[in-house]
């Protein structure tokens, strides 16, 4: 049985090209595992950047409570902390930033701030962390979101935390891609129907071709178990 967390981790990893600089932040176990997977498979020269500042940690011990802990620095070869990762992005040197949010429209807008009014919110969300500066400056902002429903993928955002270079959005159901300024369906994960995606998306689903996301290979699944033996990639689904 293919689990959404494994499909998402693999789908995110495949978007990382060899040699690219890649950053993930807090609350980001799925992208953390995806970066390690990419480096162990097709992109060994990708540069793994993170908040504690460990450049390319070697087989780090993952921690459940954080994706920004000291173990990412412990086995790294160089230090390059958060402030410098931001600086890198500001001067155009960051290839990929993994970010999330709570609402997304079909024009690459992200809301991670509030539901309702900003000053008197119905729901105060954690906040966009790096989103407002990274989404416009990183070459590609790859979004992951483990919820796929009509409140998440909606026509109108309650608040625009950031818009900019969102390139892909990965959910448990599918892989969206930005194409000519519009978020379109790129591929449907195995065992999911297009009707299911349409039902759970608050804007019309458009696509160029109906394709299925290639399922994880045996090699990818074995690497996932090796990198993340305690299954933290599944934390958001527990």
């Amino acid at each position: 049985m293919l689990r959404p967390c494994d499909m998402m981790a693999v789908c995110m990893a495949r978007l990382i090209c060899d040699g690219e600089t890649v950053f993930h932040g807090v609350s980001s176990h799925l992208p953390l595992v995806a970066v390690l997977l990419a480096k162990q498979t097709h992109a060994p020269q990708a540069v793994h950047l993170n908040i504690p500042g460990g450049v390319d940690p070697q087989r780090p011990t993952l921690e459940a409570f954080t994706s920004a802990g000291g173990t990412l620095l412990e086995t790294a070869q160089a230090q390059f902390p958060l402030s410098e990762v931001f600086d890198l992005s500001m001067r155009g040197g960051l290839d990929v930033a993994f970010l999330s949010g709570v609402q997304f429209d079909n024009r690459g807008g992200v809301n991670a701030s509030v539901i309702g009014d900003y000053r008197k919110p119905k729901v105060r969300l954690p906040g966009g962390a790096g989103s407002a500066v990274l989404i416009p400056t990183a070459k590609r902002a790859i979004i992951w979101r483990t919820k796929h429903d009509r409140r998440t993928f909606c026509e109108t955002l309650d608040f625009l935390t950031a818009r900019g270079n969102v390139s892909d959005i990965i959910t448990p159901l599918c892989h969206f891609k930005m194409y000519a300024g519009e978020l379109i369906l790129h591929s449907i994960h195995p065992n999911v129907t297009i009707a299911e995606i349409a039902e759970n998306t608050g804007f019309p689903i458009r696509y160029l071709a109906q394709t299925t996301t290639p399922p994880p290979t045996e090699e990818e699944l074995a690497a996932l178990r090796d990198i993340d033996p305690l299954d933290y990639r599944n934390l958001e689904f527990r």
Partner: protein
Amino acid sequence: MNKLMDLAAAMAQIPDGAMVGLGGNTLNRAPMAAVMALACQGKQGLRLVKTAGGMDVDLLCFAGCVSSVDAGFISYETQYSLCQHYRSAVQAGKVQANEHACYTVISALRAASYGIPFMPVRGLVESDLVTANEYFAQVKDPFSGDILNAVRAIQPDVSIVHVHMADARGNAVIEGPQYDDILLSRASKTVILTAERIVGDGYFAASSRKADIPHFMVSAVVHAPRGAAPGACHGVHGVSDGELHSFLALADAEALTQWLTRRHVHA
């Protein structure tokens, strides 16, 4: 000068309404012992500053100590989920959430540490944060004429940083990730340290590892082993799952008071 004092005396230096920078990142090396002491002393109107906060901000909001929070992200991360007390205090209008991108907190602290009133920032190209918050504005590059976004400087009255090692004068070392704590120390008017370990006066002079925070920036040093618990302190201890759950289960302010008292007695 010997700046060693107990935690209560150090926290008593912080007046109501102070702007307080908090070290660490989410559940990593946040100055939790100091935060709990602030709550016990019933501080009011604190204006908190942090790039990514967690239990520290949540607990102070729960205890009613906070008037505003300037931060990019407030959550326990995934495992312990959302900061419900921060959230409900903001939703009830008791606490003003000043949302930044983490980088604009860094840029605002850099401005303070450079002694300038604001810092231009890239990004924020299309964001409601810019119009919703008066600490963002647009500036013209005097050389090219280009328009840039800018963030107003943030100079905390005091920052509280939990460190691995300090001497009695306030020279301090952070092992492992330093997060934004060194910048915080330079941007703030003064620094209060809580330290896992106090070393002798000659320690740093004899060591090849010099202090990250020099003594002249520091006004108080507190010996506080496990001062980041129930959060983690890299290389010393991980998170205390039981204590975190007992805190997250607290129903109201009275339960919080009992929890803080029980913890204080055990300490």
